[in-house]
């Protein structure tokens, strides 16, 4: 990339920041950068994981969203109680499409909203009695659940309810795992702290329960961590690992179960897909149980190939051969897909603004299709995510942290990408502006996108969106 491009982007950042008051401008300037691949560390160029500026439109969520929505929600045989007023539970229900096998309401509970529905009197007199009663009701109505988690909403922390005491008491009474999670929404600056709190709750309340009675591990046992089975992602990843000879014993947490999680410390290797939301538990298992972990990337054939080989390098020749066999088996099919879609997508520019891993993980998949990612950014990443991102992104591309509504819209208007990938809150704004858009949090009602099978769907979806004739018929209402 040329230096003029770099200068242009710097000017663009400068222009976009112009509308802010002095203090906000200074603050936001630290969150925007033009990528320089030569950088060793992102720290000096981009600040992340800081409180959003009051008054801007941020796209972040809260700690409750990170815990209930991301980490705990997809575990299918645990009932997650949204403990507090009804709204948080209701609006967090079923939006993420983390698929599961099982009969809903009998042995699987991902798609049901359980809430203690706080009223004024619960705030005044405390909600502990109600929680105890609620757990009894759950036991009567859903006896096949394997456990219960209590996901605190803001008021629980504010009034100082002792959910830990209720959990211990009721767990002894009903003989099931009950996990209190202190993920009140006001904690932290984004959903990221919710992930951390959720990981810590798993560490403290789930893993130790079987420390003395864990089964002997097989030589090829692995666990998939940080795959939430959105649109079937974890299944598309799992079959590849099994085909190369590994034994996947646990999925955290998409389509996962409580016994799987309890037995995870018996595996040989933890495979970590979403680094941001599950590195904490991986580090803990590495320390306490001596299980190594590695990050992998199952988006697009190039990255899958690299990842399969890297995973295999932790095992013996049988698995290494297995990896080569899997790569050889799927390569012709992948070439066919690329031959079909690359001519339609080549040279197109993409801008991303998503959550924890996709802003860097999907870059490879776009490049496989001949597309170029010109801007990327995270809602809630930390410095270590940006360290990884600057290496994946091209030189002189734009990187934005916790971008505001205004910034993102202005960047798009200036850079005129051919495709935007972001969340549901951004989707309709860009639709109205006439830009092709994919909702990349839950794959826009499609998926899976992981694995070789997922890439076929990914390529088709990108083509379907980008080359849709409807965009040429639209004009932004303010331009009419």
């Amino acid at each position, binding site marked *: 990339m040329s230096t003029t491009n770099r200068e242009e982007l710097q000017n663009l950042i400068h222009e976009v920041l112009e509308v802010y008051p002095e203090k906000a401008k200074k603050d936001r300037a630290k969150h925007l950068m033009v990528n320089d691949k030569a950088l060793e560390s992102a*720290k000096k160029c981009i600040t992340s994981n800081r409180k959003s500026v009051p008054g801007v439109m941020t796209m972040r969520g809260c700690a409750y969203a990170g815990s209930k929505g991301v980490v705990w929600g997809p575990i299918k045989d645990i009932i997650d109680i949204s403990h507090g007023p009804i709204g948080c539970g209701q609006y967090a229900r079923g939006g993420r499409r983390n698929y599961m096998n099982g009969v809903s309401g009998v042995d699987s509970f991902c798609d049901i909203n359980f809430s203690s529905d706080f009223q004024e009197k619960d705030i005044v007199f405390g909600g502990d009695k109600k929680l105890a009663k609620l757990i009894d009701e759950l036991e009567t109505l859903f006896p096949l659940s394997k456990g219960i988690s209590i996901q605190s909403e803001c008021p629980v922390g504010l009034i100082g309810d002792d959910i830990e005491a209720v959990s211990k008491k009721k767990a002894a009474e009903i003989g099931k795992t009950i996990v209190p999670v202190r993920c009140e929404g006001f904690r932290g600056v984004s959903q990221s702290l919710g992930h*951390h709190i959720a990981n810590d709750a798993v560490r403290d309340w789930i893993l130790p329960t079987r420390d003395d009675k864990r089964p002997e591990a097989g030589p090829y046992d692995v666990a998939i961590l940080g795959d939430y089975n959105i649109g079937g992602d974890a299944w598309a990843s799992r079959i590849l690992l099994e085909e190369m000879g590994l034994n996947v014993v646990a999925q955290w947490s998409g389509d996962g179960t409580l016994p799987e999680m309890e037995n995870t410390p018996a595996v040989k290797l933890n495979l970590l897909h979403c680094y941001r939301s599950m590195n904490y538990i991986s*580090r803990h298992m590495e*320390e306490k149980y*001596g299980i190594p972990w590695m990050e992998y990337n199952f988006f697009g054939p190039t990255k899958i190939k690299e990842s399969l080989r890297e995973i295999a390098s932790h095992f013996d020749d049988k698995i290494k051969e297995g990896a080569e066999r899997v790569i050889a088996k799927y390569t012709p099919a992948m070439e066919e897909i690329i031959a079909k879609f690359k001519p339609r997508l080549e040279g197109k520019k993409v801008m991303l603004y998503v959550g924890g891993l996709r802003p860097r993980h999907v870059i490879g998949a776009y490049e496989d299709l001949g597309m170029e990612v010109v801007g990327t950014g995270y809602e809630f990443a*930390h*410095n270590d995510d940006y360290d990884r991102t600057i290496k994946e992104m091209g030189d002189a591309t734009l990187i934005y942290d916790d971008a505001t509504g205004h910034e993102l819209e202005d960047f798009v208007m200036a850079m005129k990408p051919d495709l935007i990938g972001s969340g549901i809150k951004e989707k309709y704004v860009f639709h109205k502006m006439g830009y092709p858009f994919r909702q990349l949090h839950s794959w826009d009602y499609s998926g899976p996108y992981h694995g070789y099978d997922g890439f076929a769907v990914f390529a088709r979806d990108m083509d379907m969106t980008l080359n849709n004739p409807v965009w040429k018929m639209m004009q932004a209402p303010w331009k009419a």
Partner: protein
Amino acid sequence: MANIMIRKSAAGGLVFYLPKRDLEDTVTSIEFDTPEKWGGELKLANGGVYYIDPQPLPARFPLSLRAKRLDAAEQ
């Protein structure tokens, strides 16, 4: 005092991790590095300096420890 975790990197060096701040960095130097006495001042690649009580070389990594911040690179 802060809880930190020290792990061995694939290359063999030490990696410093501070969960509270999600700060991960390589350790560039360690004051004492013998089997009997290990610890002291840790210098990080980002310029930060932390102190851990000298102790016998731990049998295995990763290891969680308490560390004192002498000089932080970022606020």
